[in-house]
């Protein structure tokens, strides 16, 4: 990735355009699920959202494979899209913005307490 792309986020825009183009050709019920998946993955994004790209790619990959197999979206994801997204984003390397923010806050508080001799 070039410095310019990093600064402007143009690489991300391109990735998302490609994702949306892939989603466009999915059946209608799959497209509805895709919208829900995007919304549910958003909280797992880091500050730039770049760490979400492989996860979104994986989710789309499942939708593409499953629709080609002629499955209904209900058969694929059940009724728990948030749970599916948590499992997708879970594990290593997907620390959320909120996690980092909490850590920072805790460090700051610890430092302050340290200075106060608490």
């Amino acid at each position, binding site marked *: 990735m070039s410095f310019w792309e990093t600064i402007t986020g143009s690489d991300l825009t391109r990735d998302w355009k490609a994702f949306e183009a892939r989603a466009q050709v999915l059946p209608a019920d799959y497209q509805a699920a895709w919208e829900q998946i995007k919304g549910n993955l958003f909280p797992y994004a880091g500050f730039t959202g770049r760490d979400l790209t492989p996860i979104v790619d994986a989710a789309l990959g499942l939708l593409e*494979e499953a629709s*080609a197999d002629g*499955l209904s979206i209900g058969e*694929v994801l059940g009724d728990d899209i948030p749970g599916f997204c948590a499992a997708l984003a879970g594990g290593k390397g997907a620390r959320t913005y909120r996690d980092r923010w909490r850590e920072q806050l805790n460090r700051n508080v610890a430092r302050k307490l340290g200075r106060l001799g608490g």
Partner: protein
Amino acid sequence: MEDLTEMLKGTLEGCVLEIIGREETYGYAITRRLNELGFADVIDGTVYTILLRLERNGLVEVTKRPSDVGPPRKFYALNDAGRTELATFWAKWQYVSSRIDRLREGGR
């Protein structure tokens, strides 16, 4: 048998490893195999997230192969680390199930 989700949680990953260990296969085929076994509640999405985790943890070889129905499919095979993990799973399973059986029989 209905509603095994909670009970299966810790063991499904081992089941998926076992299926992949028998032959190279892909997501939906694994789901179907588990459904045929009698785990009707297991859905494609669940298997898919397990496969992603196995991939992240470096336990499987992934090969993309063209499919006659749609986009290329990801096929999974066990690597050495995966085989070790599978052996560990069966050892743990043996331990837990033997203890539970013993509990049921009222022994010590």
